[in-house]
């Protein structure tokens, strides 16, 4: 059933890289969604914002890229908090519909400001040409291993934060039930600010990793909005661990979906094809879209969640 296009280990590595980029975005999205109860379409825009800030630090201010990432992530975190204060804090009591449209508008504002500043053409981090090395039969670059390691470390750190600190407990409590958290003496507005800071910062890091792997351009955030939402919804909204799991599933679904020869499956349902039946690469983006709709239809509460939506 495996196609001869890519080795199995290659598929696994590609899936892990994809999952690493998605998980950093999905975790922040699911926290904000869980706490504020609206789909924040502007969340993905923090990815190009962070990527461009890091690029600015590295290319204009002459910092090493690793150093430039730190202010980029922190600034993006504060911009996220600022966006919440400026826009969403004023709309706390409104219907989620209005928040959704406002988020869409805010996302466009951020994206178009970036485009106005940097122009539409793509940029690359100056990391030189990466020579892929052979690892278990797959071609992987050092940067790609770094991407997987960074994401894994972040998720481990976030897990410790969620389960081992007071802030983490407060965050989970607020995501679960804002009123109950407030009644238990949690300052929910402060928790919301921290959630925005962490979420936007993670998104910025996700953008930097995505930029390292591919290219940096204003559309890079909106381009992956559906996979990110899909990962968050797969894991159940408000559950960061679920979002990590969702990102993994999505990374594998995209890459395995393309690597599989669907001919035996199609023959089973009676559709005659040629000797091979691969999903055309142009339709790769359709995999998360379809998955999202299927998940929404069958398990809108997420794969692991139980709360009815």
């Amino acid at each position, binding site marked *: 059933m495996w196609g001869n296009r890519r080795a199995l280990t290659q598929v696994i590595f590609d899936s892990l890289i994809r999952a690493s980029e998605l998980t950093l975005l999905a975790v922040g999205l699911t926290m904000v969604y869980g706490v504020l109860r*609206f*789909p924040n379409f502007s969340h993905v825009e923090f990815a190009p914002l962070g990527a461009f800030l890091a690029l600015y630090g590295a290319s204009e201010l002459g910092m090493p890229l690793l150093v430039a990432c730190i202010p980029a992530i922190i600034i993006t975190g504060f911009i996220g908090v600022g966006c919440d204060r400026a*826009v969403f804090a*004023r*709309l706390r009591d*409104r219907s*989620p*519909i*209005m928040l*959704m*449209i*406002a988020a*869409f*508008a*805010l996302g*466009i*504002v951020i994206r*178009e*400001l970036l*485009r*106005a500043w940097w*122009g*539409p053409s793509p940029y690359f981090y100056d990391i030189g040409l990466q020579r892929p090395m052979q690892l278990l039969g797959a071609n992987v670059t050092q940067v790609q291993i770094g991407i997987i390691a960074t994401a894994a470390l972040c998720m481990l750190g976030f897990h410790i934060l969620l389960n081992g600190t007071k802030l983490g407990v407060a965050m989970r409590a607020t995501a679960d039930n804002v009123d109950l958290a407030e009644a238990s003496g949690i300052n929910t507005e402060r928790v919301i600010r921290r959630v925005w800071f962490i979420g936007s910062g993670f998104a910025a890091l996700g953008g930097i990793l995505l930029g390292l792997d591919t290219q940096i351009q204003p559309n890079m955030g*909106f381009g992956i*909005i*559906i996979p990110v*939402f899909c990962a968050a*919804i797969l894991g159940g909204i408000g559950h960061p661990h679920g979002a990590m799991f969702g990102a993994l599933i999505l990374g594998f679904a995209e890459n395995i979906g393309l690597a599989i020869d669907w001919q035996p499956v199609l023959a089973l349902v009676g559709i005659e094809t040629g000797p091979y039946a691969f999903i*055309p690469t*142009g*339709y790769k*983006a*359709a995999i998360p*879209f*379809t998955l*999202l*709709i299927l998940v*929404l*239809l069958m398990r*809108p509460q997420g794969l692991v969640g139980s709360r009815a*939506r």
Partner: protein
Amino acid sequence: MIDFLVYLGTMVGIWGILSLSLNIQYGLTGLVNLGHVAFFMLGAYASTILVEIFGLPIPVGFLAGIGAAALFGMFMALPTASLQQDYWGISTLAMAEIVRLVFLNQTLGSPYVGASFGVGGIDRPLRSWFETPDAYGWFYLGLVVTLLVLVMLLCWWLRKLPFGRALMALREGDAVPLALGKNVRTLRIKAMGIGGAVGGLAGALFAHYNAYIAPNYFLPLETFLVWAMVILGGAGNIWGALFGTVIIQTIYNSTRFIDDYLPIEDTLLGSLRMVFIGVMIILVIIYLPNGLFPERRPRYGSRPPADG
């Protein structure tokens, strides 16, 4: 100058029809459709394919565009029964993108038609009857305005019908229509179908006016523009939606003008106008949640006693 105004008027008319169709779905029924551009796209592509590839007459293309968009609208409405509004909104965004992906990957007829190349040289209705492009521009403006007025009458009539009142009740929540024995699922499917049909009409009008369509005309950004028009004007209000269309389209197209007078690059100006529209919509949502022209809601029951 005059031909620019004719062009702007035609675009306002086409987008006015599109925003009225969102008004039926969101303003009247409260459906948060974030894939609205799919109707526009299906109307444009269905009509183009039938007319250009299969050589059918243009009116048939228009009808097919309307029909395809209506069917897709009804299809989009199917999951509403089991989904919360925000979840459904995300799913509509994904559905519209799937449609765009299909057109982006699918060539039509020959290798360089369709897909990312788009389709060019689309027939314009009754073009041979007019000698100059100017005269034809006026004719098409007239056609668009006539159809716009018809759509406005349809919207106005919908509000008067028991069906329209049921839709408005649905907007405020499922409880009341359910208590009255209405099938909320069917109501939503019908509302999406009617709104889709109107959106498909706008798409067909656009394709045969612009004479060229490509998948990148139908990005989620266009959906946002339609939303901006409805939110700015006032959801549920026919005149509000039209007023919002005039404002947004004028801003959107005015860049053709401004770059004659200001030394700003085209791409920069293109970004800045979207920033402007985005900031405006955020301000409208914060400070004028009902838009510039709030919907006038009929009051029933006894009037409060008049003074004196």
